[in-house]
Structures are given as C-alpha cells and as structure tokens.
C-alpha cells in the first residue's frame, strides 16, 4: 500500500489552495450568503481555466481524466475555504451522472458542462422518499411528469434539472427545463441556495429521458458513492480548518492569566480532535480511492462507512471547536460557527449517520484486508 498523493494530485490541491487563498475569503463568503446565486463570473471562469470542470471526467468523455481523489482534494480545499461556489452541485454531480449513463446524448450534454455552457443540477431527493434515491416518489404517467423534488442544490443558477421518476415501477433519469417547473429557491444550512421544485403535469418528450431501468440505477448508485466521498472531503477541509484555528486560539487566548491551552482539559480536548482528524484523513483517502471502484459492494462499503464515520467525528470536532472558543464561537462574526454549520449540513446530505450505519450492517461481509 502507498498513501502518498500522486504528484499531479498534490499539484491540483496546492493550486486550489493557492487560488482560493488569493481569490476567496470569509468576507466574500459572507457576501455570497446574501446573494441569490453563488456564481461569480470571474471566479467561475477562473475555475474552469484551472481545469476543474473537466477534472472529474474521462478523456474519452472530453474531460481531463482526473480521479475522484483529485476532485476530492479540490473539494477539501473548497471546504477549508468555506467556499460556496457550486462546483460540486452544478459541475461534478450532474456531469458524473451524465458520464455514468454514458449515452451519446448524455455525453453531448457533458461536453457542455465541461465547456461551462450548461447550468445543470441534480434533483434526486424528495422528503417522502428520504435517502432512497432509487425509489423516488415522482411519477411519469404517459407523457406527464408529476411530483416534487426537494433539497435541490442548484446554486440558484440551474436552468435544467437532472431528475428521477418512476414509470410503471421502472426508474427513469430525465432532463427537465427548470422553466417547466414551479421553483422555490431558498438558503440551506451551509449557506448555499437550494430549491423545492414542483412538477405539475410537465410534458416529457422522449429526448428528455436519459436513462431507464438498470442503467439508471447503476448510474445513480455510482453517483451517490462519488458524492458521499465528496461530502467527506468537504467536511475534512472544514474539520481541519476548525482544528487549526482552535489550536491557535488555545495558544493565544488567555483566561486566568494564562493561555487556555495550558489547561490539561483543553489539551486533552485538542489531542482528541487531533487524533480524530488523523482518522478522518485516513478515511478520506480510503473513500476517495474506493468510492469510484467498479465493484458495487466495495464502493458502497467504503462510502457508507466513511459517511457514517464523518457524521460522528467531524461533527464532534466542530462542536468542540465551538466549546473551546467559547462565546465568540457562536457568533456570525467568526468563521468557526460557519464551519460548524457546513459540517452539520454535509452530515445530512446523501445519507445521515443512522442511514449509513443501517446500510453498512446490511452490506455483505468480506474478509478483512480485502
């Protein structure tokens, strides 16, 4: 085994970190919180120039053949910078779904994503179905699509939704223009824009159906593990930032005439955070490598375990970061509380802890080390 990041991946991560350091900040984040969409034209085109748009996709799909690990390193940096630019929601997620389907039509759409011309988002969840993405409550009756999707992370910009429905019990993936739906956009816990979308007898033409049956299921299931891994990457970025800031704070903040980091209880809190962060790093590397495996069982074991673990330990790190910061940690002024919300947010997307624990318990066994 070998845990060194490939040189190219390190380069991608370093570039992302430097780019965000120079072009993003807590102040920009706070302005973005107030905006109705999260796309800043100049940053958006810069990200495209950095190659991020093509990164997640195979060369044969017109991409730059990056691995999930490469993408995870970018997303980790986005998390570490609290950046709200909807890279995952409007580039990676819809793009991977199109690529996993892999038809001529979807690959043509994917090239628009890579070129930055498309404004897509994935509308996979509704509150009736919960995390059961393969069993949506929306129905296609004949040519009419009716139902709703919630928690649609469209960044406030999508004009086309990749969505799911059942037609006579068969799962479909469809591309539907946002204009055909009734949309309510609002702010999510992490500060991003998400939407409720109502499909009221929307007319569906054959060309809007991108995949069906097993093909649709396989593509969605691969997408989910990919996105679960990226949830972990984003949480890792945030948890790492929280740890660093808390450690520094404990060395400078004085109470009773001494730095609070000189108290044994604070020291043990920080050591626990540090050790957990090491384990989170291991799980991130693990899931970033395994969650795009061809083998469904291996993939799901990895992403389900990682997501369950993160929803426990990253959340705990975020809670302790606030506790150690004291009053200032619960204000909007300081980034600590914003990272805290980001971590909570990611712990609830694409399956929460209870969901993943249960799922892991149901997955098949393998011999340890395999």
């Amino acid at each position, binding site marked *: 085994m070998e845990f060194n990041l490939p040189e190219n991946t390190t380069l991608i991560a370093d570039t992302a970190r430097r780019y965000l350091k120079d072009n993003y900040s807590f102040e920009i984040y706070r302005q973005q919180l107030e905006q109705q969409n999260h796309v800043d034209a100049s940053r958006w085109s810069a990200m495209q120039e950095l190659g991020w748009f093509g990164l997640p996709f195979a060369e044969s799909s017109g991409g730059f053949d990056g691995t999930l690990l490469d993408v995870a390193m970018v997303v980790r940096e986005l998390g570490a910078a609290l950046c709200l630019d909807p890279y995952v929601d409007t580039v990676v997620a819809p793009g991977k779904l199109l690529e996993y389907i892999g038809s001529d039509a979807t690959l043509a759409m994917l090239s628009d994503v890579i070129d930055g011309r498309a404004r897509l988002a994935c509308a996979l*969840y509704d*509150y*009736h*179905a*919960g*995390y*059961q993405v393969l069993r949506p409550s929306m129905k296609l009756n004949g040519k009419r699509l009716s139902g709703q999707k*919630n*928690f649609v992370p469209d960044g406030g910009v999508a004009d086309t939704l990749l969505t799911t429905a059942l037609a006579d019990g068969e799962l479909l993936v469809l591309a539907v223009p946002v204009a055909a739906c009734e949309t*309510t956009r*609002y*702010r*999510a*816990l992490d*500060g991003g824009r*998400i939407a*409720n979308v109502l499909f009221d007898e929307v007319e569906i033409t054959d060309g809007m159906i991108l995949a069906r049956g097993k093909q649709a299921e396989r593509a969605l299931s691969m997408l989910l593990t990919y996105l679960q891994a990226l949830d972990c990457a984003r949480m890792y970025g945030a948890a790492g930032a929280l740890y660093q800031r808390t450690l520094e704070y404990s060395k400078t903040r*004085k*109470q*009773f*005439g001494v730095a609070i980091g000189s*108290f044994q*209880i*604070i020291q043990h809190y920080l050591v626990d955070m540090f050790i957990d962060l090491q384990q989170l790093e291991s799980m991130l590397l693990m899931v970033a490598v395994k969650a795009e495996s061809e083998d469904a069982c291996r993939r799901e074991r990895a992403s389900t375990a990682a997501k369950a673990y993160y929803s426990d330990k990253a959340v705990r790190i975020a*809670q302790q970061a*606030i*506790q150690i910061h*004291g*009053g200032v*940690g*619960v*204000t*909007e*002024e300081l980034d600590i*509380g*914003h990272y*805290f*919300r980001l971590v*909570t*947010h990611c*712990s*609830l*997307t694409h399956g*929460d*802890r*209870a*969901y993943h624990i*249960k799922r892991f318990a149901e997955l098949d066994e393998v011999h340890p080390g395999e």
Partner: protein
Amino acid sequence: MNLEFTQEELEFQQSIRDWMQANVPDDIKRCSAVGEMTGKELQQKWERLLGERGWLALTWPKQYGGPGWTATQRYIFDLERAMAGAPPTSPFGVAMVGPVLYTFGSQEQKDRWLPGIVSGRTLWCQGYSEPNAGSDLASLKTRAERRDDHYLVNGQKIWTTQAHWADMMFCLVRTDSTVKQQKGISFLLIDMKTPGIEVRPIYSIDGHHHLNEVYFTDVRVPLENLVGQEGMGWTIAKFLLTHERTTIAGVADSHHEISRLKKAVAEAPGFLDKSQARQRIAELEIELMALEYTNFRTVAATDEGKPFGPESSGLKIKGTELQQKVSQAMVELGGMMSLTWDNPETVGSDIFNRATRRYNFLRACTIYGGSNEIQKNVLAKMLLGL
C-alpha cells in the same frame, strides 16, 4: 418520602394548565410549535400578561409582588408553561436584578425599580462579560470613576443578551483598581438611554440577534444607582450564582422539546425508521427523567427551607448537555428536512425545518454563565476537596 404531587398540587397544576390553554396567545403557540424564536414584541406581550396576573416574579417574596408559591408550585408552573408552548421569561429582571435589589438595595431603589420588573414593563440586561473577561469574570476592566454626583463609566461589555431591547442594565464595573481584583468591583444600574452608550449587535449562528456589544464612553450614572457599597459587586454576583436552582436544569423546556420531537417523528414520512427513532428518543427521555428527579430533590429541599444539597451541583451541567443532545437528535432525525434555513415553504415538517436554529443556538448553553469546564473545576474544589 413522597414522589407524587399532593392533591392540592395536582389541582394547582390543572388550574395552571387550564389558564395556559386559555391565555397563551396563539401567535406564541404557533412560534413554539415549529421552533421559531419569539421576538421582542411577543416576549413582552407574554411577560406583561404574566405580570398582570401576578405570575411573573415567581420566586419573589409576596411583599414585592411574588405569588407566594412553593418551589414545587413554581416548578409545576414552569412545566405547564413550557408544555403549553410559552417561552421562558427573561431572567435578567425577575431572576437576577430583582432579588439583588430586594436583598441589597435601598428602600428607594426597591420602590423605584421593583414595580417595573414585577409587571414586565421594564426590560433589563446584564453587563458582566467583557472581551478579555469571559470565564475569568473577575478580571473585568470597565471602570466607573466617582465624580461629584455621578459615576463616569468607560469601557466595553460583550455577549450582552437583549441589550438592544433593554431599558436598564445591571452592570459590574471596576471602581477601584488598587485592591485585589474581586474587591474593586461594584454593582451599578445603568439606564440604557444615557448618552455615551452604544449598542452593537452580534448575530448568533442561529441567524438571530440575541447578543450585543455595549460600549460606554463617559457615561454618567447617578451615584444612587450603586447597589450596596462600592466593592460589593463580587459578593452580589456570587449571591446570584447560587440563588435559584430550581429551574436551572431546563427540565420543563426539555420536556417540551422532546414532545415536539416525538410529534415530528410520528408525522414524519415513511422513510424514517420510527422504531429506531423512538429508541433514540427513549434514551433522551430516560436521561431527562434522571435529571428531573434530581431537580425535584432540589425543589423539595427548597420548600423545606434547606440549603441546596450536592444533587443541585450538577443540574446546570447535565441540563445543558441534555438540551444539546435533544436538539442534535432533532437535527439528525430530521435528516435532509433539517437542511432548510430560510425556506418559505414547509418541507415535510416545520419542526425539522427549523431544527438547526435551536441546535446552533444551544451550542452556547454549555458556555455562558460559566462554561461547564469551569463549573467542573469549581465542583472539584468545593465539593470533592481536590
């Protein structure tokens, strides 16, 4: 040993429940049912309603306008108040400066300030914490210099809850910097409309404005606004810390939160594993039961005129930990429904949609009023002799 309410207490409970049923304003009930904050207007409406009924200053002696209830009755009242969906009353006037005034204040001070508190007409805030005096309160720096007929106050307070609502602040200030830290502190009452006071909002991570910074620049405070003598501030602050512990555990509101959570789970869409969810809630209910009976012991001791026993020492620590656990369970059981921040529509359940607001807000409850770590330090020293 008697762990039941008496017949009289049960009747009292029923009468309070009936009153709450009839009198808690609908707009308050609506807020509470979904977990929305009551703003200043609703809070005041509610407190004045209680004030009119004589049910605001529950712990006060009858002569100052208290209802003359036992601790058990106050406990029952608080429970029924919470279960009816009414908010806790602001502690600064009723639970804090009021008892200070009738214990340490002059007759003039009592006459002047107590009626406004007991009726809910005057709103107070607490000026204790400062930027560099959080857990280490005694190191506060805001100074009050004595001039002919007034104190001249300069400095800064922080984390001042409801300073933007308040008419008055009670405040710890340094009147003498030549003596031991604790000895140089005095307890002043400051009119928030006095020139030289600037209140700046601090937004909390629940998105709301509860807290403030308060700046004092040459603020003139009349000498008669000093409570007790100069240098008595620390004594008064300590008196308050140990004053009322019968509701410090937040048992009533935890009951209400758990009942909201159960309701949300019962109504949740089918994807939620309800048996699993109910077991998670059962664990919280059992912890609450342990806290509640510990709290009952303190209530009963109070009614017997006994000092607080050792059981009371953990009430705040356990109570705040439980509030955090309940709110975290609400967020996590809500799953994606908890992701909405300012959604104008309901997605599944309003309760879950607003769950993270309270979860975020409550991160502070193990910090303010002496962090749980500080409390444990104190207990180790005082109770365990370590």
